[in-house]
């Protein structure tokens, strides 16, 4: 590392390099396409559904997949295909915003702590370790069960809790750079701490943070659908995969399609995010397997 690498910022060649490396992996391309398809379907779902996703039909209950109802109907005669199409919207909205929030506050705190160091850093990291010892599900359930199940509550609580783990990762990545010459040079030039964070450190830890963000997103989606499954997430009649699986798993022996299609949708989304983040990390030369959950 030479001391004059002041512009590792947005070198266009770097992005192209990563992209080219990803293009070579078939797994990466497949998972990226599935992810993109999921996002597109979620955005345009209201115009694509063949049936009203809340309409009940007493004469067509528990029908198997057919030309009319591609994925069959559930125990209230609702069209599973329409509900599966709609079922990812709330989950994607909440987890995308939640991940942005978590990455935002987590990485800013982590980078600042890594740069400042000293006693503040030591004490706050102890606090972070203690916070990580909290059974997270217990806290989420407590807060959601009393404050309510509105989207913003879920976004804020998930964003807050997932940000704590991000602090550690961001701080760890920052520590690799704070002792380097270019940070020293910026200090000697008399740059403010905020400028150093923004101009020197953030561009360098961005790789790690992006991969971390993808991973957090997948985990948050898992947590969100688990909450929904337990009845603490999306409020019915809004369709949601986790909730649909919880509602229909009692009738799985007579109408397996009602459970299997939402399960397939949810699984393919989470796996595609994970594989994309994995491939992205590999293309940038980061080893994701060693990161703690």
């Amino acid at each position, binding site marked *: 590392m030479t001391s004059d690498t002041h512009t590792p910022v947005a070198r266009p060649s770097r992005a192209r390099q990563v992209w080219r490396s990803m293009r070579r992996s078939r797994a990466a391309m497949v998972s990226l396409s599935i992810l993109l398809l999921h996002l597109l379907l979620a955005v345009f779902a209201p115009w694509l559904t063949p049936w009203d996703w809340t309409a009940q039909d007493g004469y067509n209950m528990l029908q198997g997949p057919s030309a009319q109802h591609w994925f069959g109907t559930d125990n209230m005669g609702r069209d599973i295909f329409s509900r599966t199409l709609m079922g990812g919207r709330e989950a994607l909205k909440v987890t995308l915003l939640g991940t942005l929030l978590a990455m935002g506050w987590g990485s800013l705190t982590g980078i600042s702590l890594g740069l400042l160091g000293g006693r503040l850093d030591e004490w706050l990291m102890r606090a972070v*370790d203690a916070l990580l*010892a909290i059974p997270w599900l217990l806290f989420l*359930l407590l807060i959601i*069960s*009393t404050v309510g199940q509105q989207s913003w509550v879920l976004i804020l609580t998930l964003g807050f809790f997932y940000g704590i783990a991000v602090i550690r990762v961001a701080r760890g990545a920052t520590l690799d750079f704070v002792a380097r010459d270019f940070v020293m040079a910026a200090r000697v030039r008399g740059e403010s701490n905020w400028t150093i964070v923004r101009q020197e450190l953030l561009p360098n830890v961005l790789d790690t943070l992006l991969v971390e963000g993808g991973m957090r997103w997948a985990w948050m989606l898992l947590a969100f659908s*688990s909450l929904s499954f*337990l009845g603490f997430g999306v409020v019915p009649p809004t369709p949601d995969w986790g909730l649909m699986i919880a509602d229909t798993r009692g009738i*799985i022996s007579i109408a397996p399609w009602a459970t299997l299609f939402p399960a397939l949708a949810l699984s393919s989304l989470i796996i595609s995010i994970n594989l994309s983040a994995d491939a992205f990390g590999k293309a940038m030369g980061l080893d994701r*397997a060693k990161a703690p959950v």
Partner: protein
Amino acid sequence: MLKLILNRLVLAVLTLVAVCTLVFAVTEALPGDVCTAFLGRNAQGVRLENCRSQRELDKPAIERFATWSYGVVSEGDLGRSLKRNKSINIMVGSRMRNTLLLATTAALIGIPLAILLGVLAALRRDRRTDVGISTGAIFAMTLPEFVTATLLIYIFAIQLHWFPAVTTVRHNAPLLDFLPNIVLPVITLTLVMSAHILRMVRSAMIDVMASDFVQMAQLKGVPHWRIVFRHALPNAMLPAINIIALTIAWLLGGVVIIEQVFNYPGIGTLMISAIYDRDLPLVQAIALVLAAIYVGVNLLADLASLVLNPRLRTARG
């Protein structure tokens, strides 16, 4: 060395105190209590006051917290459940036993399996075996626990009739009664847990196999299996151990979901009903127990890395 261990112990206790205080503070700050959960959200007047004074909820929060903490520290008494008016020690005790049965069985099967598969994948890096194992691991790891569990129930309980779909055993039944019921929950938990560990072992093992001392041993003509298991594996386990501990602790959340799916009478199902009921002492006790497990597992991991890595023993406390 002794100082190092003492240091860790003090930190562990401080963490537990912090978790308890935080859980108490949050449950206090949130609206509603066991009486509003029991009598309905809009309950008011004499009934509500009676309910509260019976359960000593009319006393100041600090006083209640102090009484509860004193009970825990002096007699190990976790208090009484407000909803069911039973001793929490008894309620938590049998369910904790069931959860530990589930978790330790899964760990005993999952951890050796994960290490073995991880080593195998590392040695066959980027070949068909590795791709197969790694892809399988990603699937097992990323599928939500309730999806995996539901699929297993569909295949093994409903289609094949091999195992029961849900647990119908009472929480205080003898352990042997759990035998056919526990199979599917254990498989679910094992799948998720070993996938995480496998990935870490694989990546640590790849690093170690590329190091100088392994090459040296190869040049000296040390048998391959001896290099792998005597020289490389212990060194690969070093970075993996702390992360394994973190993973196990983090999976406690997953255990809650698995118990819920299989209706398994463990600490997770108890936790969810305690939260529904706003049964504060019970929530507190469960938080304390779960945090204690987390801290305990991390402590064990620290000790294990002290054993594996002599260099740490002389490091500064």
